[in-house]
């Protein structure tokens, strides 16, 4: 997966990059299955691999950036970016290596298995997290309107 994500950011052609990202999303969905999150694995495949990547591919094809492929791939100051990222990575390593397991909740594997994963997620989503759910729908509505306004041709 790490190799695939490196390939995403180094591919010359944006279309190749999108295809590598498709592979990454499939791997992440498989990881969700290992972690007993079947509903999220399905959502990952349908939403990310199905919708968002198709949107990316569609816009890349529409803009026809063939002449942009040749020429430099990276910014002028790319060593600074790499150094910054590596230093933050080292900074993150210390807290991760000293991770302490917190208290466990009530949703054990057996409890979720008895109720099925999708049903549990739905029940919590529509009871405890109902208001954030409504806000998410509002965000999506604003995104639809904003995308249409931005992409509209100026008259």
């Amino acid at each position, binding site marked *: *997966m*790490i190799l695939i*994500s*490196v390939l*995403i*950011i180094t*591919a010359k052609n*944006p279309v190749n*990059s999108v295809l590598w*990202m498709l592979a*990454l999303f499939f791997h*992440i969905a498989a*990881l969700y299955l290992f*972690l007993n*999150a079947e509903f*999220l694995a399905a*959502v*990952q495949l349908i*939403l990310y691999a199905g919708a*968002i990547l198709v*949107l*990316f591919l569609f*816009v890349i094809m*529409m*803009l026809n*950036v063939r002449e*942009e492929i040749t020429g*430099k*791939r*990276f*910014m*002028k100051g*790319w060593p600074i*970016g*790499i150094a910054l*990222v590596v230093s*933050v*990575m080292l900074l*993150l390593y210390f807290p991760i290596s000293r*991770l302490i*397991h917190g*208290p*466990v*909740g*009530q*949703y054990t594997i057996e409890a*979720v298995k008895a109720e099925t994963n999708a049903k*549990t*997620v739905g029940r*919590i989503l529509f009871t405890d997290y109902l208001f*954030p*759910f409504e806000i998410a729908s509002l*965000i*999506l509505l*604003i*995104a639809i309107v*904003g*995308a249409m306004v*931005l*992409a509209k041709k100026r008259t």
Partner: protein
Amino acid sequence: MVPINYYIILSAVIFMIGAAGFLIRRNVFIMLMSIEVMLNAVNISLVAFSHYLQDMTGQIFVLFIIAVAAAEAAVGLAIIVSLFRNKATVHADKITEMKG
């Protein structure tokens, strides 16, 4: 059982690769894709914590993050379309209107 540290390290590495891609690439498409990679890396760690701490809140959060990522991708691509219409370039260092 795989220790949770492995998942968190994987998530951190993928997040940092996404951040590197956002910082060093010139193409705005790939910068936007790097943002998606970063969001996915955070999702991995949330699902891992949700599994190991036996709490469903992490999975609910991942659902919200996916919804916000979809909205963000739509708006970002619309911005790229209007940018390309005005400037006819997808390179981030050619956009210098705000330079003093």
